[in-house]
Each structure stands twice: as C-alpha cells, then as structure tokens.
C-alpha cells in the first residue's frame, strides 16, 4: 500500500492506494504548522489500517515554498565572483551581495585568483549588518570549485560563527545566477528543513510506520526525505506536480491533455504530453528569482470560483476573492454563483442568487442569460489566453541540434482535465462552447494526493567531461572530479558516467533495477592548430520518470 499526502492552502488530503484502487481518502484542514496536518492526516488514515502494510509515504508539502514566499528566513548574504561578463547589478540575485575578485572560465581554468583580504572585508561588512549566513558563488564553479572551496574554508576557519555554503554544492547547472540563488535559499531554509524532518520521523515512529518516506519534487519525481534535507529547494511547487501526476493516473500512459486545476482564488494550468508533464524550459523561479530547480511548466492565474464579479464603467470585471460565493453565504457575486445560475453547478439552489444576478444584468441592459454567458465567456477567454501563452512557450523551446529542429511538429492537446471544486461547471461550459474534450476524474477532489502517492523517485544527471583537462562535472551539487581513464569515445564516457550515476542512485535509496534512459550523448573534438587535443563529452542520464500505476475508475466524460 502507498500513502500520498498533499498539503494545500486550505485542506490537506491523504489517500491510500492498493493495487490500482484508491481504498481510502481523508481530508483535514491545513494547520499553520504543516507537520501537524500531516500527523492528523496520517492518524486518520491509520485508524483502520495496519501500518506494517504501508510500503511508503510520499509527502507533497508547501513547507519550503511558504518559508520563502512569506520571507520567514534568516538574513543571508552573498559573496559573488563574476569574473568577466555581465554586470551583476543587472542580474537577479536573491540577496544582498559583495563582488569579489577571482574567476574561472568555461573550461574550468582559474583565470584570476581570490584576494582573501577582500573576503575578510566582505565578511566584516555582513557581520556588521548582523548577517551570519553567507553563500559563495563563482561563475563556472561547476567546472572547477576550487575558488569557492578556498573561500568557504577561509570563512570556516576565521568566522566559525558564520554558516556558509558554496553554490557548487547545491547545483551544477550552467547558470550561476540560479546556482547562487539556489545556494541562498538552501542555506536559508536548512534549519527549518531539519526541524521538519525530525518532527516527521517522530510522528512516523509514534504511529508505528517504519517505511521509507519521500518528498515530492517540483518536477514530479520524488526524493528520499533525508536527501531532501540537502536539497530542500527541490520540494518547492510540488502541488502542481502532484495534480499533474494525479491527472495522469486517471488517464493512460500516452495521454496528452491540459490539466486545469481551478481553486477558489487561483487556477493552475499544466500540460501532459504523451504521458509526461511538460517541464519549464529553464526551471522554477520564486519571488521572481530564478532557481536551479527543475519544475513543471505551470501557468497560474489569479482567477477561481470565488473571484468576484464587479461592473466598472458598464463592463464586467473580475476582482480578487472577497470571500466565498454568494450562494453559500459569501459577500459578493462570484463566478461560482454564475455557474449555479446557469445550471453548470448544483452546489446550491439557484433561487438564492436569482435576484442579484437579474439586478446586475438589468444594470447592464442584458438578460440574465446574456450576462451569465458573458461572465463565463470572459473567464474562459482569460484561461485560453494563458493557455495560448503556454503553448507558445512550449513551441518556442530552444533547439540546439538539427535533429531537434527536424523532430515532428508539436501537436496541441485537445483534451481538458479538470480538477478542483469549480472546474466541473467551467469544464462543462468550456466543452460546450469550444469543442474541447473535457474529463473530470472520479477522484478529482484528492487527485493531488493520488499524484504524490504514485510518483516515482527520479534522478537526472547531466555529465560533462573535458579529457584535455582530465576533469568531469555534473549538475548534482558538488559532484565533480578528475578523470583517471582517458575516455576516448562516447561509449566509454557513458560507461564511466553510468557508474557515477549508479553510485548517486544508491545514495538516493533508489532501487538497483531502476531503468535508466539516455537523454542525450555527444562528443566534441577539441581541435587546436588542426590537431585533436582531447574531447568534451556531454551526456544526460535519468531514471525513467512517470507514475507507479494507473488508477481504475468510473467516470463520466463531458
């Protein structure tokens, strides 16, 4: 049996899956302290369940996301080593920074050394501002981490009170701004992650659960909870990943669809393409700061069932949620009320809001039917505009190789998969007006928890080797080293990297027989003066992503 728990803004959902069936689903109110909600959900799940039969628990939490968006973090400073290139002032760094001397180039060669006096000066500067958390980020540190290491060692030696983290340990992504921001938030959320893990471990012991626990990642894979401690950022934005996987579980492995998750205040859109959620081209951002985190390409709109309807200068406008819908005792007329009025929703009686709808329609010199139609049309129009932008971004994904450009034309999905309370009504309207195929899964209310339960552990590693310099590096934080073998051709390089990959997989508690796929493999000749001096290899490996199983269900397709 698999347990999935998804922490949402209002509710925390839990499901138990056995075989291809959801055998239990619970819903508890989300507490301000997330760990309490997890404990409560687990308790309810285990009332009539043998804890020994649980194979694993997967958590999709908003812990880290909330810490960051609510800025409940210790103050953290950045020491930046940009070397030649763009002006750091025009880049998007998440914290206050000092620019230092010292530079590495794209091949990992040190082209300027560090000046420790500058490091000292920067530390004094931050300590005077009462900042005791520092990250060090050097351009191309993933190709050569020696400068970052040198600074970290210096700080540890002379400023033991300072908590310091180097960017290379967090990520090897080819984007130093993202690496720096990644290190920044990793360091800043580390303590909270520790506290959380400790609490969860205690809870599990208390409840008699001794199975492995995983955290859902933004890219729809999972991470063992102890590894998540090192990479807490990977667990941000797991909600949309959970809903996309949960949707997929109700479809089939080749499903291509738009997942529309309509809540009270916001709507999230995601794409499933031939059974795989579309990932954001460059990765996630938080508070507008780019991060080295793979995540789903999700478009969010400030639009939901509780969005209130106002009239400004004779035009229908949407404004922020003022409270629940009028028909359930809220203060203003909302989208949900219109759904009820036009018969797309039956959550309340139409008579409760008839008068208000008719009054506003009259104000606009429209029939109530015309008015309702216009409201829903406007709603769907805004969703479609966002969807169009999302399709466009997908179609405009860069391609760096001929085969990618020549690859088959991208087919836009024709299916909408609707999740969330108001989505049934909107979905029906959408299907009627725009000829989409609309699917509302049987377990639409707990789809996120299902997605969490069924997610598979994933590991994706990008390898880079330079045989002239005899070095290799990866995108997994800190993993770089010296090549002892010459690595003459791609096959040899791949064999070597597979070994490294499996070592990491072991560290991540992944099953030994987990299938591994090659994403890309290429070798470049390093030619100088018409002589081949070495080779550069780029190889991408990952465990095959997806879900553990599909859910059997009875449903009515719209």
């Amino acid at each position, binding site marked *: 049996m698999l347990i999935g728990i998804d922490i949402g803004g209002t509710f925390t959902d839990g499901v138990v899956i056995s075989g291809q069936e959801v055998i239990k689903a619970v819903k508890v109110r989300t507490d301000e302290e997330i760990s309490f909600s997890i404990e409560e959900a687990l308790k309810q799940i285990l009332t009539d369940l043998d804890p020994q039969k649980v194979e694993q628990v997967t958590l999709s939490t908003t812990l880290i996301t909330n810490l960051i968006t609510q800025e409940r973090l210790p103050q953290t400073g950045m020491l930046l080593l940009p070397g030649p*290139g*763009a002006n750091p002032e025009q880049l998007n760094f998440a914290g206050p920074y000092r620019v230092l001397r010292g530079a590495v180039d794209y*091949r990992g060669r040190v082209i300027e050394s560090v000046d420790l006096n500058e490091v000292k000066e920067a530390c004094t500067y931050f300590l005077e501002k009462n900042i005791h958390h520092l990250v060090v980020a050097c351009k191309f540190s993933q190709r050569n981490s020696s400068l970052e290491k040198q600074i970290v060692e210096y700080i540890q030696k002379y400023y033991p009170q300072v908590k310091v983290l180097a960017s290379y340990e967090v990520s090897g992504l*080819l*984007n130093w*701004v993202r690496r720096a921001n990644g290190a920044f938030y990793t360091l800043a959320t580390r303590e909270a992650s520790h506290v959380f893990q400790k609490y969860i471990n205690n809870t599990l012991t208390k409840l008699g659960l001794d199975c492995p626990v995983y955290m859902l990642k933004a890219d729809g894979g999972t991470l063992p909870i102890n590894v998540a401690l090192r990479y807490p950022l990977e667990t941000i934005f797991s909600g949309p990943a959970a809903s996309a996987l949960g949707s997929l579980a109700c479809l089939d492995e080749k499903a291509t669809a738009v997942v529309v998750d309509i809540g009270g205040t916001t709507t999230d859109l995601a794409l499933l393409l031939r059974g795989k959620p579309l990932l954001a081209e460059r990765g996630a951002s938080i508070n507008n700061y*780019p991060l080295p985190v793979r995540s789903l390409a999700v478009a969010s709109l400030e639009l939901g069932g509780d969005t209130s309807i106002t009239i400004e200068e004779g035009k229908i406008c949407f404004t922020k949620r003022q409270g629940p819908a009028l028909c359930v005792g809220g203060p203003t007329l909302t989208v949900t009320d219109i759904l009820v009025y036009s018969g797309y929703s039956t959550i309340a009686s139409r008579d409760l809001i008839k008068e208000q709808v008719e009054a506003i329609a009259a104000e606009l010199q429209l029939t109530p039917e015309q008015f309702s139609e216009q409201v829903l049309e406007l709603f769907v129009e805004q969703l479609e505009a966002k969807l169009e932008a999302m399709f466009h971004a997908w179609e405009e994904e860069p*391609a760096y*190789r001929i085969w990618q450009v020549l690859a088959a034309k991208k087919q836009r999905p024709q299916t909408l998969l609707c999740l969330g309370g108001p989505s049934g009504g909107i979905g029906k309207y959408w299907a009627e007006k725009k000829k989409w195929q609309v699917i509302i899964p049987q377990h639409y209310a707990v789809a996120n928890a299902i997605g969490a339960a069924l997610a598979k552990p994933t590991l994706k590693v990008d390898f880079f080797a330079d045989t002239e310099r005899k070095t290799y590096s990866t995108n997994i934080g800190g993993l770089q080293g010296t090549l002892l073998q010459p690595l003459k051709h791609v096959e040899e390089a791949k064999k070597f990297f597979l070994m490294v990959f499996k070592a990491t997989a072991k560290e991540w508690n992944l099953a030994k027989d987990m299938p591994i796929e090659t994403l890309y493999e290429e070798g470049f000749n390093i*030619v100088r003066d018409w002589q081949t001096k070495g080779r550069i290899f780029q190889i991408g490996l990952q465990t095959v992503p997806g879900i553990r199983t599909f859910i059997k269900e009875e449903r009515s397709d719209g």
Partner: protein
Amino acid sequence: MGKTGLVFFPAFDWAISPTHPEREERLLYTRDQIFEEGILDNSNIVEYTPRLAEEKDIQRVHFCVPNVETQTTSAHFISAGSALKLGDALMAGEIKNGFSLVRPPGHHAMRVVHGNRGFCNINNEAILVEYLRKKYNIRKIAIVDTDVHHGDGTQDIFYHDPDVLFISLHQDGRTLYPGTGFVEEAGGPGAYLSNINIPLPPRTTDEGFLKVWRKIVRPLLKKFAPELVINSAGQDNHFTDPLANMLVSSQGYAKITEELKPDLAVLEGGYAIETALPYVNLGILLALAGQDYSKVVEPYYRREELKQTADTTNYIDRLINYWQNMFSANPPDKEQLFSGKMLYNRSRNIYYDTDNIREQQQEFVYYCPDCPGIYQVISESDKTFSRSCGIKGISIPIYACSKCEEFGYELWQKETKEKVYDYYYLQDKKNDQYLMEQAGK
C-alpha cells in the same frame, strides 16, 4: 523597453569535417558563457526556437547548381530559417532587435552557388533581406558586414540593387581571403555607391575600427536612411583569431553594435572559438539588449599590446578621406555609367576554397530607365578531375518595371530553346516564381 530576440543554434551535430574550423565545437564555449551568465533569464532577452527556411526562400537569392537540395544540408535550412524567424518576430513587433547566433555562416555565398566557399553555401543575410522585402514590402535595407573577411557573397548578390546598401569592413584583400573588397568595387552601373568596401590594414584595433564606423559608415547610413539595418556579425577581427590579423576586442565589437543599433544581427565567421567567441558573442548580445557590457573583458586582454601604430592610423585616415571625398563629390548617374550602352557586362573568375572549384562567370545587366533592369549570368564551373557544368540564369528584380518583367520571360523563352548550357534558371523576384530547366530534358 523592447526585447531582444535570440535564436541560438550551435548545430552541435553538424561540421564540414571533424577538424575543420566550422565544426561542432565552434559555439560550445559560447553556449557555456551565455548560459552561465544567467542573462537568458532576464525578461528583456527572449529566446526563440530555430525553424527551417523554405526552398523558395533560397531560390529567391541563389541559382544553386544544379539545385538547392544538392548545395544544402538541414543545417543550412535551419541557419537561414533562424534569421527569418527573428525577421518575423521583429516585424510583428515582438522584439526591438534580434541576434541570430547560428552556424553555418553564409556571407561568402554568391548568387550562383556551385559549392562551398569560405565555409558558406547559402547567404543567410541575403535570404533574410529578400524574405523581408517580399513579405513585408520593405524597400530600403542596409547590411553592415563586420566580419574580418570581405563579404563578397553579399556584395555579389546586391551589386546591382540600388535599394540594398552593403557596407563591408574587413581586412584588406591583399592580405586575406577572399582577396576582394577594394574601394573600386562600388556597385554596378544601376546601383553605384550602394556597395561600400572599407579594406582595413592588418593590426587595426578598436580605435581604427570604431573610427571608420563613425566617420564613414554612420554618415552613409544616415544618408541612405534604410528602413532596416542588418549586421553580418562575424567576429574574426578579434585579436586572437587564428585566420586573420586584426586587433579588435570584444569591447570594440560591443561598442560598434551599441552604436550601429542593428535591427537584426546574424553571426558570420570567427574561429577563435575559446578566446574570442564566448566574449564577443556575449558583448554583442548585451549591447543589443541595452545592458552593461563594460565587464566583458577577455582574460588575455592586454591593452598595451593592442595599440595601433601610427602607420595604421595614417592609412585609416586616408581611407576615411577617400570615402568622404567620394560622397561629397557628385556621383555620376546611371546613364553616364552605362555610357550610352544598353547592356553592361562583367567577366570574372571565382574561386571556391572549401570545395576546390573554379568558376568562370559573365554577367549582364540590361539598362532600364525605370528599374534596376534584367540581370543575366552565364557561369561555368570546373572541379578538379570532374566534368564542368554550365548554367544560365535570368533574374527579374523585385521592383522590376512591367516592361522588364515581360522582357525577362521573353529571354527565358528564347534562351531555354537554345539548350547550350546544362541548366537554365529564371528567378522572378517580382512574382516570387522560380523556374529551372535542364537542357535536353
């Protein structure tokens, strides 16, 4: 503030040959530098996916012998298509300018294509110009070529076109491939002074490079008042380039880009793939995006070693003087240049270094008082140890008058009956029609 469009197409799976300068590795370090900078996350730079050009886009410019398919690979279609993609984005108002950071390059590809010359098969900028003119009814376009080699292909294609101003800054042809690009090559009789060559002495630095830009190119552009400016952004004037002898730095390239403000820049040559390209490409991209590029300084940059000698400065001053005098004088008109004759003709030998082909060519331009006139070319090529191939091409200009348009088709009817050459081509740019006939078939 407007956005800068970028198509980055390094063609990691395409090379002329494994150790050729035009190989997979060429933009690898540029990729590393630009990605590592994190600037692609800035909202004022938008990355576009490349696309394929269509066969017609190539026929609008070239007579490919025997056909487009033979002379191109997918990489060429993508490289040309990437520029078109940015052209469309520019015209749609999505971007304020764009950089097609692509390979393979194209500025040595002439109107007639028998093979690869100077690493080029088809001319990306010319394809872009003709596409934009056809699709968006733009008339006047300027191309400024800042590659170290003379942009002889682009010069050839627009040599008789008064609506395209081609300006090439390059290392003097007496010291470098392709051995052309002298001041006397100033355009055909119907397009005189729409082709400007600025052959710079070896070891010209940022100072000289920027001086000719400010004293010659900028005033010329102002006078011509183009609707669009395209930059053939070769990067081999760089002080570390292995195939040339100039001393320009990434700062010099970024500065000229900032001042030139090209609507679209298209990468051309540049083979110092480690020491120059990562920095020059970054400098150009930042300059286009209006961002600070002052910190883009090569680690090997030593200001004192990159000083221009007094001799070089004097030579450049004389060159500036030459062009300033040319433009202050009253240039002869079209009638004087045709000197009363109805037909202009020019014979040349053209060498294809990459493919070892020698081409013999004769060009004809028919005088027309109302339009650039019908262009005709007879070309024969011989490859070492293989049979020669002869072609005849007729081109009707995009803004041809109706008489010339009719005359073009009359010529086509007459010529194709004679069956003297292996292939006949009709390039009707006005109606976007392209015909080919093989003799004896």
